[in-house]
């Protein structure tokens, strides 16, 4: 029972599966550890290839111990999920290195089913799903190979067939089985992402927006509001000399109060957002946002936050309102005007100059915009890093090249120096609009920072110096920006976006984007709420109790149907030689409207046809002879006879 028939193929397949798994986890595991895994995997390949014996237990166990230590050292205990994945991969690979009996391979293949699923914790894109599905089929094929002598091709075919058969039912179960809430809170995988952070220090960044990773998608319900779209994520209220931070005060004292009564304000837009998995809690919304979705909470700044840290796609509905013109509290006003560091002397005097020449805050706002528009500032994605404690001075008066962070940082500093409440906001600007489905796709390279200024009687107003320095940046995404396009693309890591000059590729990219949107909206985002809506739309809200019944019945019927299919009497064995040919003649005769009496032998029937159709009598009688020779004369039905029979049939049919 324990004799393996296909050990080599099984080893290859499992090594291949684990090689793919390692590739999936490359970006999440430390490089040294990935190296170790790759080495073990390659070793196994090599052993199989060269028909060498597997290493003995002692050696393998010592190596496993060493690798385990290395794993704990490099991966660390901080992220339990990745630690768990690392352990799973390491254990499976070592087991594979030592596997000799069928039982060992059984353990490995079943573990592999688990390892494959854990890929989805980190990545759920369509491509990943397709790849993992193929690996599933391969893994099933390995199971089949362990049982039979087939080769890999047949085994994969069988397992593919089986999984295809099972898939509709599994999908059905997913759709209709009531979704359960999480049993217990598990630590989510920490995803390393580039993007926003709670600290904005533009001056030590030299390279920016090189990631075309998706951040979120927004779908407007009705009319979409007027561009530009400033997606707010974080508010920074504290300047420490170089960077803008979110003060602890703001972090913990922003519980939503009813001061901003939503009814009074003008609704700008309502839309739904699908945010990609991320470990940070912040979410995205336009202007003053609020949401009724269960996993999302709003705060007094009009920002949205996840209720729990969950590394998975999150879909929520948002209503966005204009900011109210309600006066700021005294304390608030003080806080938004406060500057602890005033070492940017030139900038301070600039602010004072401007302040003296203007009569109102609004006036100041406009003249600062003028200032940025007129004094030779340029927008760049590759700024020169600046250091020192007067970086804003350096930027405004020496360098004059920068991206949004520089402009926002400088502008907020100027406003505060002039005694106007201001805060820095980071988030995303714009996004790529897909006209077909009214969806906006926002990627990491759309990250932006701007200033919100509190103007008397107007409330919080956006001040974006980038708007005057590089106005194109406001409309649409960086990817659609003509002027910065080249710089932007050379900056991007290679990807489809970097090829968007070619219309065909651009079209393909947009189509894929759309597909990906549908995928995250319907497959990944199918949660309890959506399921409820879906079930209600089918059964009506009163008949929801029908669901379990329906599930049971359908599943039962499927299985019974399959069982009956399996046990159907097999088709009768192949017809005896010449019988098929005889039936052909008979069918032809019937077409000629000859009614043959039932009680004739085939020979007699042929004679009867010959009588009725004198023109083909010759051929028919030859056919009869052949028929008798083969059927009763024990002559073998050779190829020649076969072709003769065919020719005769042709003759019979032609000679009408």
């Amino acid at each position, binding site marked *: *029972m*324990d004799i393996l028939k296909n050990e080599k193929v099984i080893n290859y397949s499992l090594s291949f599966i684990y090689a793919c798994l390692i590739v999936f986890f490359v970006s999440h595991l430390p490089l040294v550890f990935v190296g170790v895994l790759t080495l073990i995997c390659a070793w196994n390949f090599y052993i199989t290839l060269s028909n060498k014996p597997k290493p003995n237990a002692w050696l393998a166990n010592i190596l496993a111990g060493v690798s385990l230590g290395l794993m704990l050292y490099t991966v660390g205990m901080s992220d339990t999920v990745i630690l768990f994945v690392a352990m799973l991969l390491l254990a499976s690979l070592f087991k594979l290195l030592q596997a000799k009996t069928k*039982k060992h391979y*059984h*353990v490995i293949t*079943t*573990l592999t*089913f*688990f390892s*494959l*699923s*854990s890929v*989805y*914790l980190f990545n*759920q894109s369509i491509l990943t*799903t397709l790849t993992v599905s193929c690996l*599933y089929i391969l893994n*099933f094929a390995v*199971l*089949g190979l*362990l*049982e*039979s*002598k087939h080769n890999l091709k047949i085994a994969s075919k*069988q*397992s593919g067939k*089986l*999984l295809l*058969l*099972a*898939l509709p*039912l*599994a*999908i059905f*179960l*997913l759709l209709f*089985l009531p*979704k*359960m*809430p*999480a*049993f*217990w*809170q*598990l630590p*989510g995988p920490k995803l390393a992402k580039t993007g926003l952070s709670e600290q904005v220090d533009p001056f030590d960044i030299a390279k920016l927006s090189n990631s075309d990773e998706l951040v979120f998608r927004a779908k407007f319900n009705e009319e979409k509001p007027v561009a530009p779209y400033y997606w707010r994520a974080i508010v920074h209220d504290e300047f420490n000399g170089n960077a803008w931070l979110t003060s602890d005060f703001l972090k913990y004292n922003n519980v939503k109060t009813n001061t901003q009564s939503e009814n009074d304000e003008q609704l700008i837009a309502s839309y739904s957002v699908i945010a990609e998995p991320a470990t940070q809690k912040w979410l995205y919304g336009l202007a003053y946002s609020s949401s009724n979705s269960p996993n999302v909470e709003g705060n007094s700044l009009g920002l949205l936050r996840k209720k729990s840290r*969950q*590394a*998975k796609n999150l879909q929520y509905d948002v209503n966005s309102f204009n900011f109210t013109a309600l006066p700021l509290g005294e304390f608030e006003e003080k806080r938004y005007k406060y500057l602890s560091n005033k070492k940017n002397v030139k900038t301070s005097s600039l602010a004072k100059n401007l302040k003296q020449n203007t009569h109102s805050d609004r006036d100041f706002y406009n003249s600062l915009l003028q200032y940025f528009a007129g004094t030779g500032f340029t927008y760049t994605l590759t700024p020169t890093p600046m250091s020192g404690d007067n970086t804003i001075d350096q930027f405004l008066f020496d360098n004059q090249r920068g991206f949004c962070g520089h402009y926002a940082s400088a502008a907020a500093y100027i406003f505060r120096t002039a005694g106007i409440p201001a805060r820095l906001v980071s988030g995303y600007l714009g996004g790529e609009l897909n006209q077909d489905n009214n969806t906006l796709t926002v990627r990491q390279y759309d990250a932006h920072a701007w200033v919100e200024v509190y103007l008397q009687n107007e409330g919080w107003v956006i001040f974006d110096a980038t708007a005057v320095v590089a106005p194109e940046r406001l409309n649409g995404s960086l990817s659609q920006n003509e002027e910065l396009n080249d710089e932007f693309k050379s900056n991007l890591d290679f990807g489809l976006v970097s090829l968007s000059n070619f219309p065909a590729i651009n079209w393909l990219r947009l189509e894929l984007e759309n597909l990906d949107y549908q995928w995250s909206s319907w*497959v*990944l985002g*199918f*949660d309890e709420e959506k399921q409820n809506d879906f079930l209600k739309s089918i059964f009506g809200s009163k008949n929801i109790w029908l669901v379990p019944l329906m599930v049971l019945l359908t599943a039962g019927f499927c*299985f019974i149907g*399959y*069982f009956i299919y*399996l*046990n159907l009497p*097999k088709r009768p064995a192949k017809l005896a030689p010449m019988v098929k040919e005889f039936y052909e003649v008979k069918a032809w005769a019937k077409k000629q409207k000859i009614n043959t009496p039932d009680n004739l032998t085939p020979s007699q029937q042929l004679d009867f046809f010959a009588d009725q159709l004198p023109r083909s009598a010759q051929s028919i009688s030859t056919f009869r002879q052949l028929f008798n020779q083969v059927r009763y004369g024990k002559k073998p039905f050779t190829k020649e006879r076969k072709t003769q029979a065919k020719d005769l049939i042709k003759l019979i049919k032609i000679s009408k």
Partner: protein
Amino acid sequence: MPKKTAKRPSLFKSFKQSVFNKLLKNKHLKNSITLEHRTIYVLPSSLGWYFVIVAILNFVMGINYQNNLILIMSYLMFVVMIIAVLMGYSNAKGLTVKFKDAFNSYAPQKPSIIFELQSPSVTKSINLTYQDSEQTHKHTGQVDSKPQLLTLNLPYSSRGKYSVQRIKIASNYPFGLMTVWSYIQLQEDIFVYPSLEQVHSDAHVSMLDEQADKGISTQSGSEEFESLIPHLPEMGLQRVSWKHYAKTQQLLVKEFVDFKIANALFDFTLMNGDTEQRLSQLCFLVCEATEKNTPFMLKLPNKTINTNTGQHHKQQCLELLCSFNGDV
């Protein structure tokens, strides 16, 4: 499946045995069994249980991370499990296992049983296992409507009479997730004869049959040349002495006779060595005597078999030797 049945306490074993017998209701007490609804049993194999555990783990992971893709994989695994039940059952159904023949053996060789397997539809991957042991296991990849013979070696190598235990007919088709099995319990005994130990001297052969006149009583036979007699037309030409014909032109026929050999008595007490050795020697003598067609009598301390000859007699004697359990 490697099981350590031998290590279980015997009380538990016998209890299990009795429960089993009750459950099986003697349905399998036949020499030929066709697997059908009543006689097929299906349970997940050990691999199947691992598989279910992983499916449950996947389910828990999918629920806790609210991850539809993991959930669907988990559902997929459950559905595959059920499909495996259906496929496995349909695969095994209709298989006929028929007892064909039993081969007794001389120790230390092992006896074997031959089965004939046949199935109206194709049945894949069938194992015949005796007493859940790795050694007594036979696999066939495919059984179809053409009868197929399968020899199963039994794990007995020491002398004795054994009643054949239940034989498991199992299949792990299609993915090894399910064990679909049935039993066949033969109403047969199987013998392992004593090993053959050559005996050279005749001293131990008791010539009890003194009165049977040694070498006198004759009957026409084929062993010894007796005389030449004239050829008669009905005699045929096989025994013509052509040498004489060449010399004398006279057709003579060679006449042979068998001397009626004295009946032998093989007595346990006259053998040397311990019980097993004596039995081995007796076994050798019985076989030799049967080959030479010598009538013999077998005498054991507790039982005697009267003088006779022929295969049946030999079988009787060997079986007696197998089941002997007295001491010297």
